[in-house]
């Protein structure tokens, strides 16, 4: 069995960086290159009755990672995210609204090591 390859690092990413316009910044590609996982935030064209339950699920899952010491950042922004995170007691992580892939890669690469990790003797959780 191959060893678990997780990075313990997760970026909450606004939809416009997951599904960028032509010539836009593809944060998923940058995350793949830099070894970060992605949690996508709901698309801006969803009405509140669709977006809010999706945001609540993002927050609930972020809470599980957060309480186990995984590293978090926010890429872009999403209305309602701060409120959804607050409801589960998770602060809004440090963030960036990048203009270029290099800027995002530099930001992700410069983050401190997360508290969780195999080398700290912790398990996946």
């Amino acid at each position, binding site marked *: *069995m*191959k*060893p*678990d*390859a*997780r*990075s*313990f*690092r*997760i970026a909450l990413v606004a939809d416009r960086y*997951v*599904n960028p316009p032509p010539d836009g910044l*593809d944060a*998923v*590609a940058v*995350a*793949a290159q830099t*070894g*970060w*996982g*992605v*949690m*996508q935030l*709901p*698309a801006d*064209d*969803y*009405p509140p*009755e*669709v977006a809010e*339950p*999706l945001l*609540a*699920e*993002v927050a*609930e*899952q972020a809470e*599980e*990672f957060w309480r*186990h010491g*995984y590293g978090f950042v926010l890429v872009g922004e999403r209305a309602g995210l701060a409120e959804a995170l607050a409801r589960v007691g998770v602060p809004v992580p440090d963030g960036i609204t990048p203009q270029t892939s290099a800027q995002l890669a530099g930001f992700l690469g410069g983050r401190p090591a997360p508290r969780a990790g195999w080398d700290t003797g912790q*398990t*996946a*959780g």
Partner: protein
Amino acid sequence: MGVAFVAHCLLNQNSKVGDGAHCAGVYSPVVDVLRDKGWRIEQMPCPELAFTGLNRFWAVKEQLDTAAYRRHCERLAEAVAAAISVRVKKGEDVVIVGVEGSPSMGVTITSSDPLRGGRPEWPEGTAEHVSGEGILVEEIREALAKRGIGFPRVAGETHAIPGHDEAVQRAGLESALEG
């Protein structure tokens, strides 16, 4: 072009059960195909992560199929079905990309073994892989049916299936995208 609703772990391998993460974060073999074909990506929630946590054991469908887990998946499925509904009403093509062999996210292969339970020791093997859908996928099917929306075409990431072949996985995904 359309919208691919993808299993959470395809963008975030940190959500995998322990020893299950194939890469650091983004599982590129699936994402690359969707990018190449010009499909939007919509990430579904991971049903097991929030319910059974990061320290969960591997499990078969019968172990997870409790009333409480069904209610949890029903809640997630309603959120996903509402999003799919928006896309369908806009006339966009939709596919679901799951994880074959998963008790929750399998789209044509799930894991089943009615006898499995108790002390978590069993031989490595594939006896639990059977045709069928995982629990969240079943709930999405039902939530869409309530809205009068047909179930989308599906494809699955096959890393957990014996004999996994990335070229075959890619061909299956491309076939689903092309309809």
